[in-house]
């Protein structure tokens, strides 16, 4: 079978020639997936050249249809010959057939959104911003009083609720009893009532807790940041040319400029170009008095470094807080980054298998919930920059995605 794709005004046309049977179904599905990855969510199949359609072929058409509608896209078979029409309608798949070629809703979509959005380009990546809530704002509080690499005491930890109303990152463990929690303290990230947590027991994949009914996940946090409020802006970004991607500080620049603030809280879902980060590999609750956990080589027992740029092409949930105000004051839970003097940043990344996002304006809660519902998290990283000369892995970067953000104000509880 031969597939030729041509870009039409607002949809992608795939011209199929030959037999769509078991041997070619997988090829067809992967062509559709690749198009979806590039943000093509309206696809028409030109079936004029189709000489044979088997059950496996039909199933692949149905699969494409299902995947595209799940991201608010559309899929239809056009120019079907009589035999294709017959085959499809006999099997009850005639919903796949369309009479007219252009997807009406797509046009409406584009027009509706273009009115609300502004757009600009950075390094070959197109960024669009949507204003979602005029007065969106985040109030950020520190949670837990642990100073990294000191021995952890029970009274330093704070019990926090991670409901739909907040976003949070930090180090902690599900709060049942102190003895248990202290052995399992690890990195966590939470948004929209969904919390991913990597147990500090050397585990490879994060565990996760999702708010359901009256159950609201709770953690005993050793340290971290938690924010309540709403997002004011949505940024959508995608590459204009192949291979372009957005480095994290570039994305933050867009966040700062669109929120008009130098302090911001954000959640993003994006396809990773490559992540650079560390994780706690051993619970800081186990640091003993007088131990220097933050000195090389001992630190390798406590912290694991990714070693290379990882998770390319996977879907990543970012939860983070940034402060570019340049105030010399140190803010617990917001370390400085090497690449931008005066910037402070704390971002956790939860890695999922790739799953396309709908185009246009979308909302954080829905997208995050769907992400957790569709697949289990693969990995969790505390993102860092590696600016070592020549050897350095550089910064995490992202190919396309959505970033919800808001101006933030940071409040610090008193520390001892």
């Amino acid at each position, binding site marked *: 079978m031969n597939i030729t794709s041509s870009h039409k005004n607002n949809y992608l046309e795939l011209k199929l020639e030959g037999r769509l049977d078991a041997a070619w179904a997988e090829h067809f599905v992967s062509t559709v997936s690749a198009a979806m990855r590039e943000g093509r969510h309206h696809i028409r199949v030109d079936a004029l050249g189709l000489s044979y359609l088997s059950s496996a072929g039909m199933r692949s058409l149905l699969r494409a249809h299902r995947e595209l509608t799940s991201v608010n896209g559309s899929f239809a078979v056009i120019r079907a010959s009589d035999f294709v029409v017959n085959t499809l309608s006999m099997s009850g798949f005639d919903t796949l057939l369309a009479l007219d070629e252009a997807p009406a809703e797509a046009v409406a979509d584009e027009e509706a959104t273009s009115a609300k959005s502004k757009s600009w380009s950075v390094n070959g990546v197109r960024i669009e911003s949507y204003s979602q809530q005029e007065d969106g704002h985040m109030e950020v509080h520190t949670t837990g009083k642990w100073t990294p690499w000191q021995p952890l005491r029970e009274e330093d930890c704070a019990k926090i609720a991670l409901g739909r109303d907040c976003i949070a990152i930090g180090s902690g463990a599900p709060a049942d009893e102190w003895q248990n929690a202290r052995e399992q303290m690890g990195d966590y990230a939470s948004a929209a009532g969904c919390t991913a947590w990597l147990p500090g027991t050397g585990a490879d994949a994060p565990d996760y807790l999702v708010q359901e009914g009256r159950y609201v996940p709770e953690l005993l946090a050793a340290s971290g940041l938690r924010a309540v409020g709403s997002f004011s802006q949505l940024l959508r970004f995608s590459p204009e040319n192949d291979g372009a991607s957005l480095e994290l500080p570039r994305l933050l620049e867009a966040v700062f400029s669109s929120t008009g603030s130098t302090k911001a809280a954000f959640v993003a879902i994006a396809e990773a170009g490559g992540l650079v980060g560390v994780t706690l590999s051993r619970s800081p609750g186990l640091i003993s008095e007088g131990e220097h956990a933050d000195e090389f080589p001992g*630190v390798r027992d406590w912290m694991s*470094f990714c*070693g290379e740029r990882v998770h390319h092409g996977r879907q990543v949930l970012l939860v983070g807080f940034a402060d570019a105000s340049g105030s010399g004051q140190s803010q617990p839970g917001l370390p400085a980054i*090497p690449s931008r003097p005066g910037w402070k940043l704390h971002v956790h990344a939860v890695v999922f298998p790739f799953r396309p996002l709908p185009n246009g304006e979308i909302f954080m809660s829905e997208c995050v919930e769907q992400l957790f519902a569709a697949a289990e998290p693969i990995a969790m990283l505390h993102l*860092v920059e*590696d*600016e070592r000369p020549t*050897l350095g892995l550089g910064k995490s970067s992202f190919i396309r995605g959505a970033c919800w953000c808001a101006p933030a104000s940071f409040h610090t509880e008193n520390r001892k």
Partner: protein
Amino acid sequence: MLEINNVVKTFNPGTPNEVRALRGISMKLEEGCFAAIIGTNGSGKSTSLNAVAGSFLPDSGTILLDGQDISNWPEYRRASMIGRVFQNPFAGTAAEMSIAENIVLSMRRGMSRGLGMALNRRVREEIRERIRPLNMGLENRIDNAMGSLSGGQRQALTLLMATWLRPKLLLLDEHTAALDPKSAAQVATLTKEIIEREKLTALMVTHSMQQAVQLPQRIIMMHKGQVVEDIHGVRKARTQVADLMNAFDRVRRRDLFDQSVAEQVLPQYA
């Protein structure tokens, strides 16, 4: 049953070829425990086995087998308690001697060898009986030279020889690595059968993650002459091949985490 305490071995010390093959390994194997050792090339797996078998004496550390300190015993003396199968199918048998003669050697492993005739009717019958279950048809060929057998057959016989007299400890060093996939699977199955039937304490080096997950009760992972993972009990029960791959990955990442990384990363983790 086996207790290795902080064994250190450096080859060619003080020369440019110095290799710190064992940097203080310790492990304790309970009676009847079957453990696999996995690890990257050159991580010291074979060297550990050789240290236990006595191919060389360790620089420091002690090795206890069945409560006896065998650290200073020569290899042949330890053989009275230890059965071994090597990676090379040629290493465990004498090719020009017959199957029966090879086996009869192992029937007196660690015992005195006098001037009695090695093979008589009774012995030959016993040999036939015990190699019949291999289902390789070798029971009719016991006077053929060992060298006329395939690698898989030789390895199966070597395994049988190593366990003919019940050893206190069985050492297997990648004993299926040099075989074709089918023979490898056969020998692996035989290994498990024998170890389970005789309730042997065994230590097996393998590069096959599949084998490490399926055969033993415990997985020990080595890296750069040290034990870096020891998976046993319920944790072993849920260990999959992917988990072992992750474990290898963790070890690799740890290697990449050097002083300069620490300097970069630590200030960014607060």
